[in-house]
């Protein structure tokens, strides 16, 4: 459902919610944001809960950093403690840490909502048409996305070759020394690939500053207006309700 919306309208709505999550230091607000987004993703978009949880792992690790910092070095996060002073939770340190933790998760959930419901191609096309993103940068983004799986495959090939020489199967997760030794060959591969892709695009006529058609560019419609307005209204309603509840 959300995937049919204009990517830039959706981006604006998501950025607003992320900004609100950062600015409003209220555990209830963060919790409400996380639950609402999760409901939209699972119920409306039919995305597996497991996938969402997996996507939240880096955000959770990031948030845990805040939580532990708040618990161990409470005096140094004075602002957070003062803000959390109104929280219903007993321990100020824990309350502040939990709010910071949920803030990271809320930002992650809103980002996931955008990423999981937006076609990257449509997004880049919308940027080029509506926000005048130069096509050179737009198509560089595409190439970079294409490069990621190729880099992973290349890294696996190099790891297999080295494991063969070492006489043991490769480990699932490379150690720090192995990772460091992969940097130079992968960088060389990425530079070579990027150069070739640039040449191929130039050969197909991608010029720096000439007018070009963009087919199938997303168009802003009444559905997008409705989404942006209702998203803003929901945000305002939530803020007012929380203020009223004290």
């Amino acid at each position, binding site marked *: 459902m959300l995937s049919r919306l204009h990517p830039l309208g959706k981006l604006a709505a998501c950025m607003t919610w992320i900004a609100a999550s950062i600015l409003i230091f209220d555990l209830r607000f963060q919790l409400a944001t996380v639950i609402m987004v999760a409901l939209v993703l699972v119920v409306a978009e039919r995305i597996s809960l497991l996938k969402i949880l997996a996507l939240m792992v880096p955000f959770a690790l990031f948030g845990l950093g805040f939580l532990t910092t708040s618990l161990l070095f409470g005096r140094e996060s004075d602002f957070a403690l003062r803000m959390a002073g109104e929280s219903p939770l007993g321990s100020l340190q824990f309350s502040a840490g939990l709010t910071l933790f949920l803030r990271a998760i809320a930002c992650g959930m809103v980002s996931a909502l955008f990423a999981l419901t937006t076609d990257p*191609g449509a997004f880049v096309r919308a940027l080029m048409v509506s926000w005048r993103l130069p096509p050179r940068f737009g*198509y560089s983004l*595409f*190439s970079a*996305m*294409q490069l990621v*799986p*190729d880099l992973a495959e*290349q890294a*696996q*090939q*190099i*790891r*297999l*070759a*080295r*494991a*063969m*020489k070492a*006489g043991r*199967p*490769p480990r*699932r997760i490379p150690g720090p020394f192995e990772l460091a030794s992969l940097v130079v*060959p992968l960088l060389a591969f990425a530079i070579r*690939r990027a150069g*070739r*892709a*640039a*040449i*191929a*695009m*130039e*050969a*197909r*006529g*991608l*010029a720096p500053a*000439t*007018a*070009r*058609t*963009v*087919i*199938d560019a997303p168009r802003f419609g009444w559905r997008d207006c409705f989404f942006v307005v209702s998203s803003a209204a929901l945000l305002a309603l939530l803020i007012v309700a929380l203020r009223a509840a004290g």
Partner: protein
Amino acid sequence: MPSAPPAPDLQAPAVWRAVRVRYPFSDRSGVGPVDLELRPGERLLLLGPSGSGKSTLLQTLTGIIPHSVPAHVEGDIELGGEPVPRRKPYGWAHAVAQFFQDADQTLCGMRVEDEIAFALENRALPEATICAKVGEAMRRVGLPEEWRGRRTMTLSGGEKQLVALAATLAQEAPIFVADEPTAHLAPEAANRLHRLLLEQIPGQSILIVDHRLDGLIGSVDRVAVLGPEGMLVATGMPAQVFRHSRDTLDALGIWRPLASRLDAVLDRAGLAPAHPPLAVQDVLEHLDRLPASARKRAGDVLSSFAAEHMPPASSKGGDPIVRLVDAACAPFLGPTVLRGVNLDIAPREVLGMLGANGAGKSTLGASLAGLLKLRGGARHGPAGGVAFQRPENQFTTGSVRQEIAAALPGVHASQVDDALRSWDLEALAHHHPFELSQGQKRRLALATLAAGGRWPLLVLDEPLAGLDAAGSEMVTGHIEAMRDAGFAIVVITHDMDFALRLCPRSIVVGEGGILADGPTRELLADKGLLYRAGLCEPAIAPLLRWLERAAAC
């Protein structure tokens, strides 16, 4: 069939005059001086040994060299009578469509429809026109309409190559340039690509570089041959060049089509046809027209020729050295792609591994070598070594000598010298492995695997890909020597004639398992199996059938 010769008064769409290219920090020219022209409506095949500058010459055509790839270019290059340097490379996209060897080089990771529309969007054509042209290009290449919205990243290698071809054809440029378009494709996909590439479009000129000549050469109007110094050593009609310059081509290590090699054999016996043949069928029709005694003599000389291109009697020694039992194989960190695999290989055996792009051959090879853990079943036997498709992936040191020394730990320097000498790498000992040509890299990769005899089983993944005839001959010789030295060898290849010549036994991989395991000649004669696996019969197959028929008469 080649098109009719173009009228001489028409302006050549592309011209190189006294063109010489020298790369930075190089003390000699990479190409040239070269004088060459592409004529209106002509299909020109550019041949040359590895490193002769074929790709360099193609890239000068729209100014990619020197504009995007730094080099010093002398001489004049013109497109449609206009000097090429007058525009930037992107300014020639309306005139020249370029099809690269690697589809990933052409595609940007968008949807199929966007990839095909890309060049047309750059020309600012109306959206409706672009949509019509995209549909037309997809129909021409045979891409299903429902693929429009598919991401190209989800396609197999062969499918990506077809999308890249559709994207290039959609440009509708009067000049079409293709640089080794079939180097990494399975036979059926390569044949399809050749057919599409060489479809006659009025007014379009085609310049193609390719090593796979059988199936292609019959549609070519003219051949130009670059020598190792990057200078033209022969040009002319394909039949004439392959007959009259064949000694030059052989000396330079350039591939010749099978029909040309048969022509040479018949010529030595005084039985060559009056008109030089380009297809094996032409040779066979000539043989059928010979008087009975001459046909008998021709049969004798061609039998000897065919014997050289057939696998030797199996020399495998003793019990299997490595066995897979009911194995489930998966790429590293990937899902299971092959199930129920039962396979064994013995010392001094060369096993061919055949199959379409993406069938799982490389995964099976690495599993057989013990490099990938099985998801099910069992593997018995010692670890094996793998020569990867990209040999540079297995180089870890700063010089050829160090690579060999690393493969022979604890041995005296003189033994490293011996290994370098036996693999003809002495002169390159102090070069960085990445500086070597593709053939030299493959030789070094094989040398490091064979040196010290650490791995009794060797898996060679596409050992001939991108090599010229001389490089292929050299690699083939080394594989035979390794077999005679007692190694068990698995050869993963898309070259059916190579498999037939080298491998007494082969397996065909497809449909998530092993489709067939048996004598290579029998497998490659099974048309149903070949169709099912996306393979084609070897170029020599019609001759083998003719010889059988002749023997029966």
